[in-house]
């Protein structure tokens, strides 16, 4: 069915469920086109497996345009593979060579348990957001949008932090499985905006507490998260979060 001429060897992590042990399994693939995306290459593999009566590899994916944050493959030791600023679904086979061997593993972190094959459970991220990653404003409470001018630089900086897609690459690549880049991006987005000020110090305390409760590790300033983030979220956010966390102990009357 495919039209290309690349031959590949895949070593793919197969694991039936969270209660069983997994292992890398070898697969040979032929006729891969350089125009295929990495996930389309997996579609070809799965079509072959189904035709041969085997079970296809389960992996998370949805939008396939780099924005939903669902795809999550650890490719040759790097989350989302060899290219910078790209998610797995936007990685194309032209980034590989004919004859390559490619190792594909799930995100590895205690807080992201494996569900099956390459699929992991990232619900810890949702719980961190539920702990404080919002502005408490009910529907119907808002004033006119332009009654609160926000300097463009500040709005743009908030947007850059808000561009995080919640994929978890930062956790997967971190030797400590720290979620600080993810958590700090949300904290920064809201701390940079005037709307976020009333809950600023309460927010940082609750979100950090939840992050710790989920079992994510601490930050040791390696910077792998920033280097591997498909959306280029900056380490500055972690610095901002740490500053706010420290300040919270002094300025906030609330302890969360």
């Amino acid at each position, binding site marked *: 069915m495919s039209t290309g001429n690349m031959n590949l060897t895949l070593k793919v992590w197969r694991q039936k469920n969270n209660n069983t042990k997994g292992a890398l399994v070898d697969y040979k693939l032929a006729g891969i086109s350089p125009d295929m995306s990495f996930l389309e290459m997996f579609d070809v593999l799965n079509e072959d497996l189904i035709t041969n009566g085997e079970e296809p590899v389960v992996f998370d994916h949805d939008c396939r345009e780099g924005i939903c944050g669902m795809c999550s493959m650890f490719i040759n030791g790097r989350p989302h593979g060899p290219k910078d600023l790209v998610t797995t679904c936007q990685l194309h086979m032209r980034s590989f060579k004919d004859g390559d061997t490619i190792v594909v593993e799930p995100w590895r972190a205690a807080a992201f348990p494996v569900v099956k094959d390459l699929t992991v459970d*990232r*619900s810890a991220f949702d719980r961190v957001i539920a702990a404080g990653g919002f502005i408490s404003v009910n529907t119907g409470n*808002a004033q006119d949008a332009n009654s609160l001018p926000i300097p463009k630089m500040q709005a743009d900086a908030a947007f850059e932090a808000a561009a995080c897609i919640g994929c978890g690459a930062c956790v997967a690549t971190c030797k400590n499985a720290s979620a600080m880049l993810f958590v700090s991006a949300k904290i920064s987005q809201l701390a940079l905006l005037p709307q976020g000020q009333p809950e600023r110090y309460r927010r940082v305390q609750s979100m950090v507490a939840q992050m710790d409760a989920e079992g994510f590790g601490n930050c040791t300033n390696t910077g792998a998260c920033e280097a591997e983030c498909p959306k280029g979220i900056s380490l500055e956010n972690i610095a901002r979060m740490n500053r706010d966390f420290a300040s919270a102990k002094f300025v906030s009357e609330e302890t969360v």
Partner: protein
Amino acid sequence: MSDINSNIPEGELTSKWTKYKSSVPLVNPSNKRTIEVIIVGSGLAGASAAATLAEMGYKVKCFCFQDSPRRAHSIAAQGGINAAKNYQNDGDSVYRLFYDTIKGGDYRAREANVHRLAEVSANIIDQCVAQGVPLAREYGGLLDNRSFGGTQVQRTFYAAGQTGQQLLLGAYSALERQIGMGKVEMYTRHEMLEVVKIDGKARGIIARNLITGEIERHFGHAVVLGTGGYGNVFYLSTNAMGSNVTAAWKAHKQGAYFANPCYTQIHPTCIPVSGDHQSKLTLMSESLRNDGRIWVPKKKDDNRKASEIPEEERDYYLERRYPAFGNLVPRDVASRAAKERCDAGYGVGASKLAVYLDFKANTERYGRIEASKSGIHNPDKETCMRLGTEVIKAKYGNLFDMYAQITGENPYETPMRIYPAVHYTMGGLWVDYNLMTSVPGLYCTGEANFSDHGANRLGASALMQGLADGYFVLPYTIGAYLSKEISVKAIPTDHPAFVEAEERAKGILNTLINIKGTKSVDHFHKRLGHIMWEKCGMARNEKGLNEAIQDIRALRAEFWSNVRVPGSADELNTELEKAGRVADFIELGELMCIDALNRNESCGGHFREEYQTEEGEALRDDENYAYVAAWEFKEGVNFELHKEELKFENIKVAQRSYK
């Protein structure tokens, strides 16, 4: 002519909604605490409704098939969201937004619903900004706007090319806040497989836990479906891989009418298909048409590179055919014009199924402005291009990067190649003014319903409708129904109706697993997509549609006898999930063709080749087809037509012109 009641309130168009809101029955706070609402879907329409209903005090359960509510496909919307704020002082108003939307929809939408949408549009922007959604701003700190197709004002708010992402994350944060407070129970990786009806009313759902395969029963006093559109019936579309019609289709099979299924939006600016392996198509935002000029060579089968074709040998066909709107004509018009040029032999690229979207002229123009800002007089072309590229990069950088990543070409140097692709479905479950389907207690919001876009949706209106429905419309209208349900106690899920619905769902899963045929689910999905694209796509005709109906029936028979679903039903089984969805797409595909065959006119996204003007524009038949076609499901995959007459009392119906 109508045999269904849309429950539009009496009175002047402009005061209907205000009056409705102040007279709709309320539910008191202590009763709200015991009333349970089920929301299926966590995109803009689902998450906003779930958060708002929980804030109001209802007990809410929300379901999504992804691993987190933040993944819903609303996240991929790029360009923007419309609102009648008139911040640009360019003469915008609620009436103009209403008018543009009705006209853009080719006079096939309900006036009262669209006017309400325009009225609440401004509240949406206020709400999102209050939530901390970082919309684009000007240096003065105020919100920025841009133009979108089918309008002559700047009313589109945006966040770079990621507006949907930012709005969804806003709604998601509101939802997570309610989850954290224990007011919403969130069920991720759950798929709705049945609607449960008791005494004719929707009273719950059957859902499958996608991780364990367990089938669960959930009660609700009312059920809301915010489950998105059905564009994936074409296999290749700009929708996410998981986007599906299953929830809406199961509701349809339980009595909810499906309205105008043939109205599909083919978006003009998508990255062209590159090969058989392709799994999805990627949109290049309509906002690019603000600065990109669309052209093809004047000469047929011109194989020169774009850069080698001189200006006078280029045909800027949209500017030529529609001087008033130029490159910013509505999507249906732009798509058909691209198809016309390619069919006539003027297409570009290897497949010849593409046209150019060229940023050079505007890059140079921006460069000249930048040069003059920094005091460079008479800048050379190179300087202009260099400075202008920076401006283009700031506006559309992420889209250009995405294009380069997918095609391997640099769009800053060569024009983009684009071609139309399936993007949005205007049809959906029929709802009345209250957003209630023809099943009492079953509501439908966002793209999943049919209500606001007529036969063609204008750009930046999907986000507006999803959030309007979820934040500002449904929370009021659902009260009208729930206020009569306060004495109903939660019905135990061992009720026979739950048992029976669960058996139906399990029966389908077991059948699919046990067919043990020879072809994969994707194999059938691709074949369905091919039939739909060729015969029920950008242009349709009677002969093709009749053939398509036969082809789809044959495909359905083959699917149910020869599909192969590996694995079992009691584990994470993505092939089983896909099989259930494709089975529903096959039935829907047939209904789309039946609907397209029934509608002997062309309007918006529905173009019947037999009905066109001499200039090749869509030719409506207002005398015979100014109605909503609402189809009722009948045993054995048959459909009965009901009509809701569309009355235009505030707008003069005219031949749509963008010339």
